[in-house]
Structure formats: structure tokens, C-alpha cells
């Protein structure tokens, strides 16, 4: 029998107690896994944002329009590699509750600016450019509604009206866009701006925002300043920022999600710290005599310390690892329904590693006081007690 067997046997000496501890640790790590996964997915836009991409919006607010003429003027700015633009469509399918993340874009430049994110077969992109009343959809949207290339889908707008009356546009699906990595959100529908602008009843010749790529991130600042200075004192002043800063500011509008996640995870951990810590202390106290016997047999203080700590760390791992596994299953189950706010919701390897580090920390913290007490225990006192 080696030390590990002893640790294992000690831990499961009271099976019910060990099982209860494992359950409470499991739940804390399940909460940690799900919330950390959510937070990561929610802020993923920031991490994913390309360093050389800038967003230009109307200075009043990003919901205010800008003249389409800005597209060509920004394109001519020195240091700009490529520019594209988009306009919010306010799309839904059949019922206003079936929100479709829909943008009117300029196809060729859009897929050039986002080439590191999106993959579309060249012939499908060509078909999209050729057929003005076509649209392309992201893979996850295609999966959600079961739409295929060639399908004709009616997309209604909760904002715009067709010139001919009616709020619904019919589009043929020309292609399906894949994300180049797991984290890329593909829950969208893109349609051609030119066709949209021609058929809408108001707002003609205006766009929502410009997305531009600089030659190098070093030029970001200069390019942004040049653009904003170019339109200063006009009827539509602009505000240009990096994609990352823009995404971060937008996420912050929902409130301090980081603080909420931190408080809830914190509450869950304080709970198990107290429960497990006290129980470990109790179970070591119950074993005082035995520890005395072990010491009599020649076990050193350090070895006893290691064994007690080993027991608390083993307990934390036995609860924590399945907890993370359950969290991973929960994220998979909820991924589709949270696609709009937290794309690629998952327990990532980084979160799993953080979780394991937390488990070891938890094991050491809950075990350290009983372990030190056990280490310092004098044989005479131990055998004399109880």
C-alpha cells in the first residue's frame, strides 16, 4: 500500500461525506465553467478583432447614418488598404420575434476586409455579386433554418419599407459563408447594398458604418485622425476607432457583466471553501489518534502534511473535473440559443486550465490548516486524545 492508496482510502472512509463534498465542489466548478465560458464568448469580439481594422461611424452615434460618398473619400486616404461598409437592415423571418442579423453590404470589398474570418467558395461569391437580389448566409444561420443554396427566402425589415410598399424582400441564397475558426460567429444574412438602396423608400444614399483595413496597425492612429478631420464640421462628422475599442465599448453598454460573473463565481467559491474547509478540519480531527499511530510508525511530519494536502487536492479534483465536464455539456446545449449574444459559447482549453489551477488552489487552501495541525501533532497528545 503506497501513500496514494492511503490518501484515497482516507478520503472515502466516510463515503457519504466524501460524496457530498464532491457534489458541492462539482457545482461550484460547473458554475465557474459556464459563466467563464459565457463571459469569454460575450467578449470574444474584442479578442478576435483584427489589429489593423478600424470602424468609422457617425459621431452622433453609430445608429446615425452617413453619406455613401464617404466610402470613396475614405478609400483615398493614405494608409488605407481596403474599405467596405454596411447598413443595418433590422431583419426578421416571418414573425418579428425571429430576429435575423441582417446587413446590407458591398460584396467584393466586404469579403476582402473580413478575409481572415470568412470563407466563401469563389463561385458562390461570384453568384452573389452577379445576382443583385441574392443573399449569402452564415453557416450557423443556414443550420438554424435549414436553408440551402438556391432557396428563396422572404426577409422582412422592422425598419425599412420597399418603394413598392411592403416590408418584405425576397432573396435567393447564393452562398453559405463558413467561419475560418471556431470563434467566428456565422449567424448572419448579408444582402447587396446597391439593390437594397435602390428598393428602399427612405434613407437613400446613406450607410451605417465603414470598416477599413490599414496597411499596418502602426498607421491606425494617423488614419483615424485623418478621416475624422476630413469630415469635421460637416453635417455628418465621424468617429473612427479600432474594431477592438468599438466592440469593447459596445459590450460595456449592457452593463458590467464582468463584475456580475465575478460576484456569482466568487459567492460559489466562498461557499465551498467554507463547507469543504470545515469538513476537512473535522475529518482530520476525527483521525487524530490514527495520525499519532502513523507518526509512531515513523511517518515524518512532512509526509503527513503531504498526505492531508493530497487528500484535499484529490477531493477538489474529483469534484472539479466532472464539474467542468458538465459545464462543457451545458455550453454545448445552450450554444444555439445564445448564438446572438455569445457566439461560440464553450469551455475553452484556457478556461479548463484556469479551472484546474483553481481546483489545486482550492485543495491546498482547504487542506492547509488541518494539514499543518496534523504535521505538528505530538504523538503523546494524539494518542492521549479521545
Amino acid at each position, binding site marked *: 500500500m503506497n501513500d496514494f492508496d492511503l490518501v484515497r482510502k482516507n478520503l472515502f472512509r466516510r463515503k*457519504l*461525506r466524501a460524496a*457530498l*463534498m464532491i*457534489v*458541492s465542489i462539482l*457545482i*461550484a466548478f*460547473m*458554475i465557474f465553467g459556464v459563466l467563464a465560458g459565457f463571459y469569454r464568448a460575450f467578449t470574444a469580439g474584442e479578442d478576435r478583432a483584427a489589429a489593423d481594422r478600424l470602424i468609422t461611424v*457617425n*459621431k*452622433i*452615434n453609430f*445608429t*446615425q447614418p452617413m453619406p455613401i460618398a464617404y466610402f470613396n473619400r475614405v478609400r483615398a486616404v493614405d494608409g488605407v488598404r481596403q474599405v467596405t461598409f454596411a447598413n443595418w437592415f*433590422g431583419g*426578421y423571418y416571418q414573425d*418579428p420575434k425571429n430576429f435575423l442579423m441582417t446587413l446590407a453590404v458591398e460584396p467584393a470589398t466586404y469579403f476582402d476586409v473580413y478575409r481572415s474570418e470568412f470563407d466563401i467558395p469563389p463561385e458562390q461569391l461570384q453568384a452573389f455579386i452577379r445576382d443583385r437580389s441574392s443573399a449569402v448566409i452564415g453557416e450557423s444561420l443556414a443550420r438554424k433554418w435549414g436553408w440551402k443554396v438556391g432557396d428563396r427566402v422572404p426577409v*422582412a425589415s*422592422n*425598419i425599412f*419599407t420597399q418603394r413598392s410598399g411592403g*416590408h418584405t424582400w425576397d432573396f435567393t441564397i447564393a452562398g453559405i459563408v463558413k467561419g475560418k475558426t471556431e470563434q467566428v460567429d456565422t449567424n448572419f444574412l448579408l444582402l447587396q447594398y446597391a439593390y437594397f438602396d435602390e428598393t428602399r423608400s*427612405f434613407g437613400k444614399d446613406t450607410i451605417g458604418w465603414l470598416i477599413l483595413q490599414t496597411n499596418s496597425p502602426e498607421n491606425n492612429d494617423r488614419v483615424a485622425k485623418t478621416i475624422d478631420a476630413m469630415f469635421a*464640421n*460637416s*453635417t*455628418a*462628422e465621424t468617429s473612427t476607432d479600432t474594431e477592438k475599442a468599438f466592440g*469593447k*465599448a459596445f459590450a*460595456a*453598454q*449592457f*452593463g*458590467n457583466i464582468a463584475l456580475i460573473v465575478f*460576484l*456569482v463565481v466568487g*459567492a*460559489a467559491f*466562498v*461557499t*465551498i471553501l*467554507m*463547507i469543504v*474547509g*470545515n*469538513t476537512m*478540519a*473535522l475529518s482530520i480531527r476525527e483521525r487524530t489518534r490514527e495520525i499519532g499511530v502513523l507518526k509512531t510508525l515513523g511517518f515524518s511530519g512532512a509526509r503527513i502534511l503531504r498526505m492531508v494536502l493530497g487528500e484535499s487536492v484529490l477531493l477538489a479534483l474529483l469534484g472539479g473535473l466532472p464539474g467542468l465536464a458538465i459545464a462543457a455539456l451545458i455550453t454545448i446545449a445552450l450554444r444555439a440559443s445564445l448564438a446572438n449574444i455569445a457566439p461560440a459559447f464553450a469551455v475553452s482549453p484556457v478556461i479548463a486550465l484556469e479551472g484546474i489551477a483553481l481546483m489545486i488552489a482550492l485543495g491546498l487552501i482547504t487542506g492547509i490548516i488541518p494539514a499543518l495541525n496534523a504535521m505538528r501533532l505530538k504523538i503523546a497528545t494524539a494518542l492521549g486524545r479521545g
Partner: protein
Amino acid sequence: MRSFLLQVIAVTSINLKSIAQRRWLSLSTVIAIALVVVVLLAFLAMANGFQRTIAGSGADDIAIVLRAGSQAEINSTVARDQVRLIEDGPGIARGTDGKPLISPELYLVVDGLKRSTKTKANLPLRGIGEQGAALRKGIAITAGRMFNRGSNEVVVGKALLREFEGFDLGSTVSFGATRWTVVGVFDAGGSVFESEIWADLSVVQSLFNRNNFVQTVRARLVGPAALNGLKSYSDNDPRLKLEVKSEAAYFAEQASQTSDLIQKLGWPLAIAMALGALAGALNTMYSSVAARATEIATLRAIGFGGFSAFVGTLAESLSLAAIGGLLGAAATYLIFDGVTASTLGGNFTQVVFDFKLSPWLIVEGVALALIVGLIGGLFPALRAARLPIVAGLYAN
């Protein structure tokens, strides 16, 4: 019967007095349950506060007219000709001058800076018609004055002023190339309107280049029952075909989306945490039964029934849970009640609201705590009741 009751009371009091012997384990259970209740109540107070702010904003006798399918004011457009048709609609109250009491409105989003985070935030700039303020209940200018019609002046809600920078009375704000002076601050009885900036409709229309349309029309009805008449008037005129709702119904829909979401987050989290606390409670109570094994066996040996041991253990568990529940409710009240927060509402703009605990929410929180206490005490109590006397006497 009397002796039975006395037995139960005696054992229960022994149980409760013995809590002190397991103070650390018991305290950890109390705190674990308290934390569960804090997490639950903080989420519910957030949902409740948000709900009250938005749902409390609408009136039954005000109709709001939007473009069909637009769902929110920010998306809607109503053409000028349609506004005229609505003015002539049935059931709309008229002022002493005979004019219909309606307010065509524009709802635009402008940037503000949140005081706490210094980040940009979407704020609503509402261009209101002549009757705009009168169509909302409890609007009172608390500082300065109302804007003058036809000038670049705005009044701001007091919640907006508190949460966002740069709107102090007398200051100049720029929205793009346009400049405006803040001439007044208004109170709107804690409703969502307190998170808004108001200006004269015609000035907003011309400075924001929106001359030919508005976004919504609000109308005072002669009574809540007049809504259906206005609805069918709009449905039957091909030039209108707009969505007509009571303002109360509109805001109730707006409120439910976000507050449902908050509740849907809060309950599963609290229940998961409650399961963790339950494991702790079971552990504490089994330890309690184990520690008192000799005592229970002794009582049984001198004629006490198993039922009294059962009740005693359950009472110990329930009192720990009750203390935890009340502690959690008190902590939530002290830490969160009245805390101001803001988030994006259904109109894509910031809604300022206060966390609001209610007696009913506290009942829900304490009930969850007691459920944890009940289940956490039940199984250990059964063990206590069934403890074989002989084994118990030799337990130590």
C-alpha cells in the same frame, strides 16, 4: 399527547443548544445558504427594478402608433400624411381649443459618456410634439425650465443626468455638428422617460434631416376603451395599416424581454448554488446526528420516541436555513436595494433603473433557503430516528 409534545420540545431545545458545539460547520452552512439567497435576490431585484421602471412608464389611456412589425420606437417610421390621418381618428381626446391631444415624436440615439465607466453609451434624444409632456403622467421640471419651441434647447431626465456626463443644467452639448443648451431637468416619477433627453420635434427634425416623417405618434384617448376604435380605424385605412397599442401594453412588452432574461439567468444559478449548499447542509446535519449519537440513544433508552429525535434534527436544520435565508435577504437589502444601474433596453438605448427588493421576493428567497434546510435535515433526521439504541450507546 402532552408528554409527546413535551418530548419533542425537550429534544428540539437540546438540538438547538448543541449547535454551538458545531459552530464552524453550522456557520458555514448558514453562510452558504445566505450566499445562495443573496445571488437569487440580487438577480430578482435587478429584474424587478428594471420591470418597474419600464412597465410603470405606460398609461392605459394613451395610444402609441408605430409602423407594423417595428416592435420598438427606434425602428418605427410614420409618414407626415399618416400623422394627419391619425389626428382625425376616432376616440382621440381634444383640448379646450378643440385640437387633438397627440404628440408626433422622433426617437434618435445619441452618444453620452457613462460616469462610472467613462465609456460611450446610447442615449435617447426624443423630439416631442406640443402635447408631448402633457401626455405623460407626473412630468415636473425640477430645475431650470421647459425648452422653448423652435430653439436648440433640451431638457434632460434626472436619471440620465445622474448616470451620464455632460448634461448639467446650462451646459452646451453637441450632437455631431449641432449644438444644444440644457435648459431644464425633469422628474418623471421614476419612469423610463427619466433616462431621456427631450427637445422640440420640429428642431430635431430639421437638424437631423428627418423632415418628412416621425417615428411614433402618441395620442390621449377619451378612455382606455377607445383603443379598439382607433385600431380598427387604422386597420381599415390602406394608407395607415399601422400598429396601434396602448402605451401600457407597449412598455409591458418592452420590459418583459429584458427582465425575463435576467430572471432566467438568476434562477438556474441560484438553484445550482442551492444544490451545493444542500450538500453542505446534509453534511452538517449528518455530523450533528453522529456527534449526538450517544445522546440520542440515551434519550431513547429512557423512553423518548424516535419521532422526537426526528423533529429535533429537522428543527435544527430548518433554523440554520432560516437564519441563512434571513441573513441573505438582509445582506441583499443592505448591499443591493436602491443601487442604480443601467443597461441597453428594447429601444437600443440605456435605461437607468434601481435594484428593487420587494416583500414577495424576500419570501421567495427565504422559501428557497427553507427548502434547502428541509431536504438537508430530512435524511439526517430519519437516521436519527432510526438509530439503533445499543449501537448509539457504544458510539464513542
